[in-house]
């Protein structure tokens, strides 16, 4: 029996009649979407199958077009570019087939989240379309170029729709790459945009509020709590996804967030200093050196792991050490070998919270003597991104070390306040 997706078929099995439209199946079963809306999988064995109607030549996805929702944009509002990287802030469902499709055009996004049109005038742009986990450092360069072009073309703010898994890496990368005169806001959703309970709309509305504010920083704007009360504005170099699934997974680590957006009235309250709109001139330094490793030390991990990085031609290494920033003493000779071969070794802590301090215990002191440098209160992942960026900026070891030790974009602070 030649069944195609979209055919209307009738199946009789065990004296029961099923009728519906053939849907994709990943097993031998024929999956029917029945008129009741339910899907049912029927194994073709001992089943009598009749095609009632072949599918129309083109199976068109059908969406309800809202009649009153106006997607007309007001022209006296700030201009905001929405750049999509594969994260979905809007999607549509075809209930006839059950198919869900992501929406990227400004019109489609505005149709799903009409409140946005009161905040800004939008243009939409797909930069690339990858799953968050398939993100690569090379994409950050491309993203930075696109962002700067949008700013040059007059965008008053940028929203980057990003998958949440690796949003913090991209946000950190752009923080290092771009001196921005306007807000650059990363946003995503922890619940897919197809559901009525999705956090997409609230996050997007708050992100748009920040994109039109005077906070000219690279930020991530996501739910602050499990309630739909406010979003937090996190600095791109201080934010980390701290929960696998909750809406409020994103937290500022080792610092307060820049502020909050109250969803009910779209008012921003700031609690940290930030760079104001227009104070910086646009400057983009987007080159990176992706060949950098982030190595986690756990009890008993052999120094061979580090040797592998050195011998495979890695250009820089971040060690995620225990506690104050330690690796086993038998790693120290390998650290020394790396540094002597011109490979910067940065030590961060797997505690995430707090500052690395390798001057307290002997092992730490030996690590420093071997040439390792402390990441201060920088997150290990941010240190990793920073290392890639620094090595993209300079080939000189000493300059690289100098840059690694200095604060570029709020990734490290000199005073531990929390």
């Amino acid at each position, binding site marked *: 029996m030649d069944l195609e997706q979209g055919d209307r078929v009738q199946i009789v099995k065990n*004296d029961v009649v099923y009728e519906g439209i053939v849907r994709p199946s990943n097993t031998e079963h024929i999956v029917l979407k029945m008129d009741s*809306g*339910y899907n049912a*999988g029927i194994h073709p064995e001992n089943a009598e199958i009749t095609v009632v109607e072949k599918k129309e030549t083109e199976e068109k996805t059908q969406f309800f077009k809202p009649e009153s*929702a106006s997607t007309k944009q007001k022209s006296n509002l700030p201009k905001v570019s929405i750049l999509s990287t594969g994260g979905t802030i809007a999607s549509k469902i075809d209930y006839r087939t059950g198919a869900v499709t992501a929406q990227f055009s400004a019109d489609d996004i505005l149709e799903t989240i009409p409140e946005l049109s009161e905040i800004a005038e939008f243009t939409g742009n797909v930069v690339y379309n990858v799953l968050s986990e398939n993100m690569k450092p090379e994409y950050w360069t491309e993203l930075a170029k696109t962002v700067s072009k949008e700013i040059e073309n007059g965008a008053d703010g940028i929203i980057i729709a990003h998958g949440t898994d690796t949003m913090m890496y991209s946000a950190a990368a752009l923080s290092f790459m771009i001196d921005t005169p306007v807000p650059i806001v990363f946003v995503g959703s922890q619940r897919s945009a197809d559901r009525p309970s999705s956090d997409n709309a609230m996050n997007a509305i708050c992100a748009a509020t920040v994109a039109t504010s005077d906070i000219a920083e690279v930020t991530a704007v996501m739910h602050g709590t499990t*309630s739909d009360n406010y979003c937090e504005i996190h600095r791109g170099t201080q934010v980390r996804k701290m929960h696998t699934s909750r809406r409020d997974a994103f937290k500022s680590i080792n610092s307060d967030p820049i502020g909050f957006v109250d969803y009910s009235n779209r008012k921003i309250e700031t609690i940290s200093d930030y760079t104001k709109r227009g104070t910086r001139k646009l400057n983009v330094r987007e080159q990176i050196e992706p060949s950098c490793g982030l190595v986690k030390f756990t009890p008993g991990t052999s120094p061979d792991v580090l040797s592998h990085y050195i011998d495979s031609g890695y250009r820089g290494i971040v060690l995620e050490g225990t506690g104050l920033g330690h690796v086993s003493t038998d790693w120290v000779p390998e650290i020394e070998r790396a540094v002597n071969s011109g490979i910067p070794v940065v030590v961060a802590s797997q505690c995430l919270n707090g500052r690395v301090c390798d001057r307290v215990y002997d092992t730490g002191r030996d690590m420093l003597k071997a040439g390792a440098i402390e990441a201060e209160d920088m997150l290990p992942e941010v240190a990793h991104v920073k290392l890639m960026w620094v090595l993209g900026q300079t080939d000189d070891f000493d300059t690289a070390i100098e840059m690694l030790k200095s604060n570029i974009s709020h990734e490290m602070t000199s005073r531990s306040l929390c």
Partner: protein
Amino acid sequence: MSEKFDYEKLGLKCGLEIHQQLDTHEKLFCRCPTKLRGTNDSNLEFFRYIRPTASEMGKTDLAALEQSKLNRKYIYKAYDSTCLVEYDEEPPNEIDKEALNTSLTITKLLNMQPVDQMHVMRKIVVDGSNTTGFQRTAFLASGGFLETSNGYVGMDSLCLEEESARIIEQNTDSTKYSLDRLGIPLVEIGTAPDIHSPQQARETAQLIGMLLRSTGKVKRGLGTIRQDVNISIAKGARIEIKGVQSLEQIESIVENEVERQINLIKIRDELLQKGAHVNENMYDVSEVFADTQSKIIKKALKKGKVIAGVLPGFAGFIGKEIQPGRRLGTEFSDRAKTSGVGGIFHTDELPNYGITEDEIESLCEYVDAGDNDAVVLVSDNEKRSFSAIESVIQRAKEALEGVPEETRKALPDGNNSYMRPLPGAARMYPETDVPQVEISREYFESIEMPELLSDKINRFKQEFGLNQELAEKVVQSKDLPLFEDIMRTFKYSSNINATIVARTLTGTVPELRREGVEVDSIKDEHFFQLFELVEDGKTAKEGIEEILKKLADNPELSAENAASELGLTGVDTSEIEKFVDEVIDNREEFVQEKGLDAVGPLMGVVMGEFRGKADGKQVSSILKQKIEEYLSQQ
């Protein structure tokens, strides 16, 4: 039984939709217990907004509906017995196997066939009762039937789905829900419209209920089973009546709905004959009532308006009864209330409510209404009033066509009232977070059929010698599993029989509960301990009630400790024997004279000492034995 209507001639078609909660250990998509909680136990509260997108709303009044839904705040109460899955903060876990097994048992009991592969869907629900904005539901089986005394009734569909959150509070701009109920497994059984009389509707519901309870795996008690009834007669329309509370109510629900449809059709015919029609105009008649003495209107006019609609040819019809105590006007008023007004006035019931004859006269003049015309009034804020009159005019239009298709709500008196238009096709798409479940033939065949409750009653009568009443009572009791467990343990016992156990569980315990004793704190093991005591003669069955009361107050005690604290134990046979010896010694003459007939009179003496402590039967046998011994020694 003589019936009120000739249902066959009327072409009555009726179908049932039954929702039954399953009594599983865990919820359908997370490993939380299926226990309801007191809202005071809540340890977390949070709120969300639900955003129905345009595609969920259909076409009706999109803008207004969207606005109201957007602003509505849904507040959720959570517990230490709920988790991130209920909060929509974690993807669903795999489907609960126990729920699936019970559903497959029900599938068999209803003579249905399961699908080979079950797909969980997301059914869009935007009233906040699901934190996700959809209900997870899966089509499991179809093609079944049940036999009733009036013929077969098809069992069309069985779906396994998650229960919604429990509504606690409804305010103008927010709704509060409790998450304890969200996610409890639920089966939804839909019958074919094969039911042709109220009696058959009740019988079918009863039969399905009995089969569901036969599994021993369904929840019992208020709200754990909900029945919806679909009703139509040939000239009428399909009406879905939600929330029929009890089996007893089903018949009157069907009967009264048939009556409503008959009357609506009759009214339609008469209206058309009279040339009635509908005037779309709405009139602001506030100035007619500028000096009114009607308190309601006076109050409304302070901030609002009086809006009127004219229904030409409707005079006398609005007051016509369509169900016992409900008129066509009630239907109009139900619709008006959906705009948020308190109700309507109409000329069929005026003058009344402080509205005078003169005012009516000038009102009719103002809106140019004649003797055959009816005028409907609403006094409230301007927007609501216009919207209410618009709804009334719409309903009046439908009265000219007959019975409008609606979803209605069952009322306690067997009537029903307007709830909302019949829903369109359910909006569903696959729940991709839950893998599809394969149901092999072997698996389905391996599902064991439980003993039907109707068979169980007969077995209890034969096997245990219970009478019909007690057998029925114990089978319908939620303690049936406990009864069966106890009977298994005391199968070969001489002092414990089914009647004692059944009386204790279905008589003594409920009586104590009525007296206000906390019987729920009595544990199952207490009953075993208690019957063990009785079986061993350590306490008398007359002491059961006292001991249970003690255990209810002190559930940490064992039955034995409770009995001994009450002084209802500690009598062993030797003590009774000793006392009997004394009694016989003291009454030698009497015993010699009466012989074995002395047992009866002396029983009273001995029981006076041991009442509640020793079993009467045991005492009597000791007494008899001792007297025999005494006599043979003489």
